[in-house]
């Protein structure tokens, strides 16, 4: 395809996107970093999550799928229910590649908004999520902050996660502390581009095991009654890693590349 034709197609796509006015669903502009917005009371939304996680030392591809049903409870509170599933294809031994697909439990999410990123000095909110599956229980709490300044939108999350995994001999407990940060610029009322950064830290048996770092571009588009957001997050050299890691990244617990696509409709 010629450069001129590519440019013409990109221009046409941008013109279509730029025609969007304000959105009508609880739009998200980032896929890992949460904003403080909550659905108005009684308003419902369906959100489809797809998270490919690709690459370890050997062949590894995993898709996390989540189907989320959201509803606004009060002016400041919303809740949602997730159905989770995952598909994994990996080399488990030399010359042996296995694929699995499993239901990965249900999650209940609650989000409470304290202040608004436009009307107040800073947007603040709390987030809690409980996940239960056949062999694991997880509780997650987040402190959310966001702020819009002109065409720029900033968001940050501090995340605490406690997991219990039920093994035949014992129950393994693990803590995760994440720091997420994102910024996006509005190209038009409907289109934003930006960057997301995620630092995830794992603590097991009181030991800080590793601190992995991801960063990459994010793009979002909002329209009447629906929105979509996508992020591509390659793993960068770790801030801290255990001795068992052979390279600069944490590949025992994470992958070389994560991406996430969120697609949402008001119902």
């Amino acid at each position, binding site marked *: 395809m010629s450069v001129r034709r590519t440019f013409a197609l990109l221009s046409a796509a941008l013109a279509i996107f730029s025609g969007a006015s304000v959105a009508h669903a609880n739009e998200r502009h980032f896929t890992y970093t949460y904003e403080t917005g909550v659905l108005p009371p009684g*308003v419902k939304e369906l959100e489809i999550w797809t998270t490919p996680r690709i690459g370890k030392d050997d062949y590894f591809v995993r898709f996390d799928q989540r189907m989320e049903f959201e509803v606004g409870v009060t002016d400041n509170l919303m809740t949602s229910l997730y159905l989770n599933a995952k598909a994994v294809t990996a080399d488990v031994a030399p010359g042996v590649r296995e694929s699995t697909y499993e239901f990965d439990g249900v999650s209940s999410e609650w989000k409470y908004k304290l202040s608004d990123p436009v009307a107040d000095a800073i947007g603040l909110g709390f987030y809690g999520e409980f996940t239960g599956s056949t062999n694991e229980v997880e509780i997650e709490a987040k402190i959310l902050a966001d702020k819009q300044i002109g065409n720029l939108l900033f968001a940050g999350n501090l995340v605490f996660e406690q997991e219990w995994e039920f093994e035949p001999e014992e129950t393994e407990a693990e803590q995760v502390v994440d720091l997420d940060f994102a910024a996006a610029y509005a190209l038009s009322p409907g289109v934003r581009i930006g960057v997301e950064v995620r630092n995830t830290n794992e603590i097991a048996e009181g030991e800080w095991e590793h601190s992995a770092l991801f960063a990459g571009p994010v793009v979002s588009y909002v329209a009447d009654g629906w929105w979509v957001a996508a992020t591509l997050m390659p793993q960068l050299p770790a801030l801290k890693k255990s001795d068992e890691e052979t390279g600069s990244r944490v590949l025992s617990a994470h992958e070389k590349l994560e991406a996430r696509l969120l697609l949402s409709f008001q119902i």
Partner: protein
Amino acid sequence: MRTFILTATLLLGACAGPQIPPPTAVQVTRAQARWPEVTGQSLAHGRNLYVSRCSGCHLLHAPSEHTADEWPVLVGKMAPRAHLDATERTLILRYLIAVAPP
């Protein structure tokens, strides 16, 4: 460090109020010329409703982003999706029109 905190606070403070401003006395008087029953309190209530209900679907737009003629069309389009009843819609609209450029 102290300078950084002070600068950040001032920057955030500067960004805070004016984006969704409370109605001024002049704007209340102007609104009363159009709707005699309007009070400063009812316009402030309209602002609170705008902040709490409209931000659920999208980042808020400053009243100055649209003219007094444009806001009724936009609010009319949004109201069913945000489940706003007739009273809430009127209060929000009167606040936006009162504060928007004529």
